[in-house]
């Protein structure tokens, strides 16, 4: 079953939706409490997030650092613009690899959906070229994971 959707919208947006079998409060907390974020926001197999700063208040800072344990890593920094507990988060973020990418403006909403939650994450990039670059950079990591998995099947 494919529960997640990811699509581009217009020239500058990317919209991700996903349903969860938990109340909006729990899903919201899993997006704002570092001890919970570190358990799932990891990307490719074998990566961890040794540094997780998430100050869930307007103007609060976000900093996520990922590592593959073999010297490779990158990080994201950001700031919160708006928070409505358990229903809405608005923040900007940028990736450092190591040069900072243009800001990605992200609105995340958590809507009650039956006994669960519908999460909608709407990203807005400054322009079409930046969106393409962001998607291909994200894909770069997805591809890395698929190549690592491919290699491990050969061992």
């Amino acid at each position, binding site marked *: 079953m494919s529960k997640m959707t990811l699509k581009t919208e217009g020239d500058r947006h990317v919209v*991700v939706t*996903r349903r969860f079998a938990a109340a909006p409060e*729990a899903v919201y907390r899993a997006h704002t409490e570092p001890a919970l974020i570190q358990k*799932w926001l990891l990307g490719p197999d074998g990566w961890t997030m040794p540094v997780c700063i998430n100050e869930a208040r307007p103007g609060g800072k976000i900093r996520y650092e990922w590592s593959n344990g073999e010297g490779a890593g990158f990080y994201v920094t950001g700031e919160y613009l708006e928070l409505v507990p358990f229903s809405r988060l608005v923040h900007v973020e940028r990736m450092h690899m190591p040069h900072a990418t243009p800001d990605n403006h992200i609105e995340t909403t958590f809507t009650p959906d039956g006994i669960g939650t519908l999460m909608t994450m709407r990203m807005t990039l400054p322009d079409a070229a930046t969106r393409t670059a962001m998607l291909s950079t994200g894909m*770069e990591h*997805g591809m890395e994971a*698929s190549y690592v998995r491919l290699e491990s099947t050969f061992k």
Partner: protein
Amino acid sequence: MANLDASFSALADPTRRAILARLALGEATVMELAAPFDMTQPAISRHLKVLEGAGLITRRVEGTKRPCRLAPAAVDEIDQWLGMLRKALSANYDRLDDVLAAMKTEQ
């Protein structure tokens, strides 16, 4: 099939994937492409030759420069990458399902 194989091996290298990501922003010269990497221009040129051979980039002549841009095949490739990004994100959310289930148990 031959072209698929060529594009697969061309993309197996992280530097070449990063070059494509940079070209997604627009046309660039060898010098501009070499700047973010700790590599010489001849080394970058070798990567460009592989990408060109796989039909992922095209180059034109402009005086002494040969600027590169994404070929239509690379644009298709980027669509496929979208699928991989989807997979990586899905894996995160599958992990989040487990975190949420554990939170429920703790209550």
